[in-house]
């Protein structure tokens, strides 16, 4: 915890001191092809601060044992540290109770869980599931699988040329057959921030029987999230985009919904008692957590939440917003560069194409300049199709991003243009 208080002290009350933040991330001193690393790929996965790395290591060095199983001291300590993370997450997103937090491998697993439990129990032939044209594959494919099994239909609310969901069309697609409405808080490919509260209100008004799942993977690292204010039923996210470990994440669901849902995978920890005749399932959230979990990863996830809390989500949002505006202006000044995704409410993502230059060619040259960006379809092929593109170049920001990073990107883009002029 000492590292957290150091961070707290380092952060001025009104702003993020980015050089202090950068010192928390050991990988940022790395060299790539002999150049200093310029990491602009946090939307794919964020780097880890020392205190997260230390938290994970310390579990194995000081308190490792299986959780919820032993009466011995180590098991009790590991269980306490593990369960404490549920409370941290609940407070972090404004959930009513730690019991509403299910530990999972990430956003993808959380969406699959809801599709395979609530979905299979409640969706029937002729029902509809509504998503938006902004979704990435993790918020499309699990619903397609459910639709195919239940003979239900997947509906898609279109987006406009800025990458904003057409709310009139969205409202028009809601009706008495709508059972699930699922959409991203923030688009991973374009950075669009959806007006979740407004969309949720439309669902309650026009399809009160439907449940609302919000994919928060790109939301929670960048802004203060209060699930009650958003008005959704499920909210899911991944630790690795929040400066925590990979392979870890969480689902928040309203307690009554989680209680009514059937369990998912069977095994240890998700049961109260087992005989060969009958098994009594454990209560929420444990009935969704079969098997030995990623204990150290979960505890390190807690450290990442402490870190974000110490930095302050409002400070992070303000700093990233300022940097996004700077990056937007710098990139817009480059001839032949077209930004893809120009929503008025946007965060942390600069997706673009260069006239006459394929994103993969640009990506290889930028890599040689030490600039790490993602090139490709960002696991969101329908978004690319909407803009008639096979791929984009995406620079994405995190708490450690600086104007110097943007300047290095701009210099790299000029090298790309020289080569392919």
């Amino acid at each position, binding site marked *: 915890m000492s590292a957290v208080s150091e961070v707290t002290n380092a952060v001025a009350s009104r702003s993020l001191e980015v050089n202090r933040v950068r010192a928390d991330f050991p990988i940022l001193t790395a060299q790539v*092809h002999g150049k200093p690393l310029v990491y602009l790929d946090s939307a794919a996965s964020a780097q880890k601060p020392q205190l997260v790395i230390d938290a994970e290591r310390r579990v194995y060095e000081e308190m490792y044992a299986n959780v919820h199983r032993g009466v011995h001291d180590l098991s009790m300590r590991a269980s306490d540290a593990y369960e404490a993370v549920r409370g941290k997450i609940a407070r972090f997103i404004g959930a009513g109770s730690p019991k509403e937090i299910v530990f999972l491998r990430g956003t993808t697993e959380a969406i699959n869980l809801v599709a395979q439990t609530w979905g299979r129990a409640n969706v029937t032939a002729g029902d509809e599931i509504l998503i938006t044209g902004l979704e990435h594959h993790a918020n499309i494919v699990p619903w397609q699988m459910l639709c195919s099994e239940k003979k239900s239909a997947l509906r898609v609310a279109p987006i406009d040329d800025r990458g904003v969901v057409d709310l009139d069309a969205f409202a028009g697609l809601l009706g008495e057959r709508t059972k699930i409405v699922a959409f991203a808080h923030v688009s991973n490919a374009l950075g669009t921030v959806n007006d979740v509260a407004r969309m949720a209100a439309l669902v309650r008004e026009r399809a009160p029987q439907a449940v609302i799942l919000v994919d928060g993977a790109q939301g929670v690292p960048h802004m203060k999230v209060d699930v009650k204010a958003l008005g959704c039923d499920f909210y899911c996210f991944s630790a690795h985009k929040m400066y925590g470990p990979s392979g870890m994440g969480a689902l928040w669901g309203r307690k009554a919904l989680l209680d009514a849902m059937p369990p998912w995978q069977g095994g240890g920890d998700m049961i109260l008692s087992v005989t060969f005749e009958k098994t009594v399932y454990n209560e929420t959230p444990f009935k969704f957590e079969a098997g030995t979990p990623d204990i150290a990863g979960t505890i390190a996830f807690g450290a990442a939440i402490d870190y974000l809390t110490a930095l302050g989500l409002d400070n992070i949002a303000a700093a990233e917003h300022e940097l996004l505006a700077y990056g937007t202006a710098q990139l817009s000044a480059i001839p032949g560069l077209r930004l893809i995704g120009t929503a008025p409410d946007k965060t942390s993502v600069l997706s673009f194409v260069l006239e*006459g230059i*394929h*994103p*993969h*060619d640009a990506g*290889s*040259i930028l890599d*040689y300049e030490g600039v790490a960006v993602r*090139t*490709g*379809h960002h696991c969101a*092929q329908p978004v*690319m199709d909407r803009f008639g593109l*096979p*791929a984009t170049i995406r620079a994405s920001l995190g708490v450690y991003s600086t104007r110097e990073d943007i300047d290095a990107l701009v210099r790299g883009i000029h*090298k790309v243009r020289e*080569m*392919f002029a």
Partner: protein
Amino acid sequence: MNSDLRDLYQDVILDHGKRPRNARVIEGASVVQPAYNPLCGDKGTLYLALEPNGGAITDASYVGQGCSISTASASLMTEFLRGQSREEALHTFDLFHDMITAPPDEASHRAVPELGKLSVFSGVAEFPARVKCATLAWHALKAALTEAGATPAPVSTE
């Protein structure tokens, strides 16, 4: 410019990437083979005109979208193939594939005299992330020559 990067983007590649040769549909082609790289979304179609009874390739073309590496690779491939028999073309595939998937530190991967102009792609071996770009059209070729006659499914680099 870094020398490895110059090896990857040689002038011939930049030229063919910008102005691909044989980027046209062959009407009445003997084989039409779609190609798709799911990693980056690049797609294209290879057309081959073959002499009757499994004879030589009389014409080859490729129409598609892709990066300069995949576009140039398809362009140079279609130039190289003309006049080759089916067996020669499959042998060329093997030579090309071996050249660009050679371990990066293997000095010998640079010299493949039989491949002539196609040797400009030897630098791809230093960029494992770009091997699939350079081989997309080639995988289409292999599928076209080994499954010729059947209705082809898109060949994938995966």
